[in-house]
């Protein structure tokens, strides 16, 4: 029994249409069907936050959605955060400058999470940032610099405003 459906959606501003087995998660659809492997899969049951994407501008865990549920929706993955192939977003730049990543596995989920968070909370405290990323696990335990990068990014975004 392999029931499939056509899924038409926008990912990072680009239209895609593909067949998906109905049981396929959105995360696997992005990675395997569309080849967008920036979205990482850690636990695949909603604990680690690595697969966080933006669904119509709001973060969601791509492992906790079916691809068919994304039909007609607008998705942003980590590949869609930078303004161009040669530039980084202010948040990404802050991560680079603050050593906000070590192995980088959790980074896509943290960047998408913080993209939403800093958009909605332009002047966060350190505690706000820690709560915001409480649903993202970093096995390198590099949280100090992730928090520093987020606070730095907030300042950069403020300055650019």
């Amino acid at each position, binding site marked *: *029994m*392999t*029931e499939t*459906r056509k899924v038409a959606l926008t990912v990072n501003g680009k239209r895609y249409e593909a067949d998906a087995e*109905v*049981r*396929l*998660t959105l995360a*696997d659809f992005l990675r395997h069907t569309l080849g967008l492997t920036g979205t990482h899969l850690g636990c*695949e*049951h*909603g604990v680690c*936050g690595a697969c*966080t994407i933006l*669904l119509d501008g*709001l*973060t*969601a*865990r791509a*492992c*906790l*959605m*079916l691809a*068919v*549920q994304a039909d007609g929706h607008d998705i942003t993955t980590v590949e869609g955060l930078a303004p161009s192939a040669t530039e980084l977003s202010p948040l990404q730049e802050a991560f680079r400058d603050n050593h906000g990543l070590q192995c980088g596995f959790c980074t896509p989920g943290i960047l998408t*999470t913080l993209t*939403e*968070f800093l958009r909605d909370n332009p002047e966060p405290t350190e505690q706000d940032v*820690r*709560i*915001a990323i*409480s*649903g993202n696990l970093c096995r390198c335990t590099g949280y100090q610099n992730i928090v520093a990068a987020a606070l730095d990014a907030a300042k950069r975004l403020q300055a650019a405003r």
Partner: protein
Amino acid sequence: MKPPPFSYHDPRTVGDAVALLGRLDNAKLLAGGQSMMPMLNMRFVQPDHIIDLNRVDGLAYIREANGALEIGAMTRQRDIEFSDLVRARCPLMHEAIRHVGHRQTRNRGTIGGSLCHLDPSAELVTVAAAMDATVTVQGPDGTRQVEFAAFPVAFMTPAIELNELVTAVSFRTWPDGHGYGFVEFSRRHGDFAITSAAALLTEDASGKITRASVTLGGVAVAPIRAAEVEQALIGHIPDDKRLREACEACRKYEALDDIHAPASYRQHLATVMSRRALEQARARLKSHASQPAKH
């Protein structure tokens, strides 16, 4: 990991969803998916059919009517978190919902899903018990109301039939100026609470408690309404000594014993969390200016 094979249905109306439930064997409803999807991915559940409620019209709303706040079953936890109406009329829920998972899960998770999943330590389940919520259930013969006290029938098992679904939850609002408190103990922010407590209070002109609701989450398979604590407060000034002594009653409830904590620890936490929730509620009582601020 991927879910086991299933047939996928995405009805557009509640009637169609109920009809599918009646027609299909071994079907599971998919609401926000923040518990169902992990269970599917790990194959704890192996349904032959998934009925996705995300494209059903008319199940996401928050409205006030007849002294109650009615929330549609598919209302996202996020929309409850940012609702001015919830904040004004149901501040306990506003306080509690920030403890529900994380932003990423609240963006998707729904109130109906949380109540039907009925995790013993789920915050919304505790709030529903604290506020004597009424659950609206729709089946082939129409709708019926279930008082929340009768909603949990066993561990993670709500009082709904296989051919029924929850469409709304109604919370009787408390009067303006009532005190409310919600606290929980968890190892990390956003984790399921090992023990949580919700408290609601009203007082009379002399500062004596006229109405109290004290609820413990995570202690047993369903929320515990600590009636003994409530009774010990009504008619009395809620000073520190009275709160402390009243909350001692929480130590005697039969408690879950699992990998997260032994029963004795939950019983200890129950006394501490209930007292802290009551202290918060007391500090927020605004019925009378004579009440000294106790922040």
